[in-house]
């Protein structure tokens, strides 16, 4: 990538205070996002993947400034939006839009479709009522909904249709970046790909950059230019999409990739199994956060936190002390899977 990133996040953290008992105020913090850095380039899709509870949704909401960042920088088009006051922030909001996970929750149940889709124009433009109505119809057509549903309420639509409304609202003001927070995981499998395709088509048409959050790699696989894997508030690996699938560097990414269901039933046997629970982000394990579940963990892993560093020439970042061993492990599995396939 040669162009300037449209979004550059540096060392972003988001901590939530967790109040202890009322008597002894030993407040602990939940480090939902713990020092995340990432870049998104204009027009590309960055996928962010991780188990539920790893902080990816919090990351998305903090980047969109729906949450106040605890520390770190969010630079959007050269402007640090982490430090903006609420007025300046409101002015920049149309350029960063958000598609929520649950289309049942993210549309006001008391507003009609036309009221929902008019809102962006009411807030940010001086358009007359007629012009707004026209815009709304355009939007509906763009996301593939009939224009005769203007006076319906959200509950009269299916989940997929509602998500289309949510997408229409997000693209209303021609944003540069759309953050998609698991936009299909609440939907029926049958409509998931429709929504993903709609997002891709809109991205092409409008030159959107997408930050696409998902909890499994299979959704992200088809659409992402680059993928970041998140574990317990940290990014453990970032790379160009295909490279990640071919040769995941981090042991955790290897598990995730291995868990993708294969179309070929002969390959469907799982070779790797992730043991143990996701540790609590209130008290994450010392050293490498993954050491409680990592088959390669050694003493060093428990003491020293690995840094996210470049592992090869083409921007393949991973955070692990034992990349060599990890790659060997992957090669073994890869070889065995090829044998299985034969």
């Amino acid at each position, binding site marked *: 990538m040669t162009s300037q990133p449209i979004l550059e996040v540096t060392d972003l953290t988001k901590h939530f205070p967790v109040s202890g008992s009322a008597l002894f105020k030993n407040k602990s913090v939940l480090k939902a996002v713990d020092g995340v850095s990432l870049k998104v380039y204009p027009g590309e899709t960055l996928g962010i993947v991780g188990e539920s509870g790893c902080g990816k949704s919090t990351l998305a*909401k903090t980047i*969109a400034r*729906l949450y106040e960042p605890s520390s770190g920088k969010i630079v959007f088009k050269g402007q640090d939006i982490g430090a903006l006051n609420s007025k300046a*922030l*409101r*002015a920049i*909001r*149309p350029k*960063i*839009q*958000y598609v*929520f*996970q*649950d289309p049942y*929750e*993210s*549309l*006001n*149940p*008391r*507003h*009609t479709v*036309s*009221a929902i889709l008019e*809102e*962006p124009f009411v*807030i*940010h433009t001086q358009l007359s009522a007629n012009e707004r109505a026209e815009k709304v119809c355009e939007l509906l057509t763009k996301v593939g909904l009939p224009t005769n549903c203007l006076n319906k*309420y959200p*509950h009269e639509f299916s989940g997929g249709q509602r998500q289309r409304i*949510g997408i229409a*609202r997000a693209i209303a003001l021609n944003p540069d970046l759309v953050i998609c927070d698991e936009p299909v995981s609440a939907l029926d499998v049958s409509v998931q790909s429709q929504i993903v395709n709609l997002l891709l088509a809109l991205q092409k048409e409008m030159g959107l950059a997408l930050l696409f959050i998902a909890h499994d790699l299979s959704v992200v696989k088809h659409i992402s230019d680059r993928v970041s894997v998140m574990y317990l508030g940290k990014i453990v690996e970032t790379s160009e999409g295909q490279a990640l699938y071919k040769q995941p560097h981090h042991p955790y990414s290897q598990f995730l990739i291995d868990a993708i269901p294969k179309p070929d039933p002969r390959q469907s046997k799982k070779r790797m199994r992730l043991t143990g629970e996701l540790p609590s982000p209130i008290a994450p394990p010392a050293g490498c956060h993954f050491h409680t579940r990592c088959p390669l963990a050694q003493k060093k892993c428990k003491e020293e936190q690995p840094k996210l560093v470049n592992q090869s020439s083409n921007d393949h970042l991973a955070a692990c002390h034992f990349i060599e061993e990890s790659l060997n492990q992957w090669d073994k599995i890869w070889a065995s899977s090829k044998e299985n396939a034969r």
Partner: protein
Amino acid sequence: MSSFSPQALRRWQRFKSIKRGYYSAIAISILIVLSLLAELWINNRALMVKYEGAYYFPTYGDILPGETFDLDYKWETNYRALKRQFKSEPNSENWVLMPLIPFSPNENDFIEGEYPPYEPSLASGHYLGTDMSGRDIFARIIYGFRIAIVFSIFLLSVTYIIGIAVGAAMGYFGGAFDLFFQRIIEILSNVPILYIIMIVASIITPNFWTLALLLAGFSWMGMTWYMRTETYRENAREYVQAARALGAGHSRIMFLHILPNSISILVTFFPFSVVGGITALTSLDYLGFGLPPPTPSWGELLQQGTTNLEFQWIWASAVGALSVVLTLVTFVGEAIREAFDPKKYTFYE
């Protein structure tokens, strides 16, 4: 735009299907309308007088002095006497149309040679008798009902407006603002309202408005907790975040998104607040700290009745009216609550 959401319609259907509450609502509405039109059917002014070819409608407006009808006094015409007079004149063209109950609530109707109270009788027209100073009880009950219901609706409007505003602001802004008002509310809730009113009543004579505002000033707190929680919850929901992501300002989020979604349930409290208002006014009147005499009042009637237990019709009328109205309103309240949350209150089925 969101005139009648399907959910509202469903609730209305459910409300209608709960017969007891539905008919109580109809009955109470009729009672309110009748009481608001009380001048037209309980009054010592005539509805209509025909005198020497001219028509008079004395019900509303200034008093018509006796001279209007060539009587020898300047004060307000006694229409009941006028009616008797016209009747006694043979083949006269003049007539008086009196309301159904030809007494005014503040009027002392003395029967010669007898001391009030007079017991109920069809002949005298005092269907529920009179009180200790000869005022028609039925008239006082209806006019008293009007004052009580208007009083409690005014009271609850003020308490709701303050309560909703403070509660919503607490839930929305949170933090120090929230903490500050929590303490204020705790202090206010512990003030014994009766003493305050007794003190105030000994300094000024409370009228309708001062009494209502005074009561409201100490009873808006109940609503705030509810609104605070509700606002807090709605504020965290994603459709509000979506509005925020669009760059909506505080007032837009508050008035277009949060309030419409949190306020509808307040309807369920409405009837119970009405009951509370009526009870509060009645008890204050009973103790003599309420509205100044001779305002028609159930509390005052009850007080007369309990001090003169031998005249059963006085206390019986007050108790009867109070129980009928409070029961009706409570039935309405139960039905509304049930209509809003059929899962929680299913004892009707």
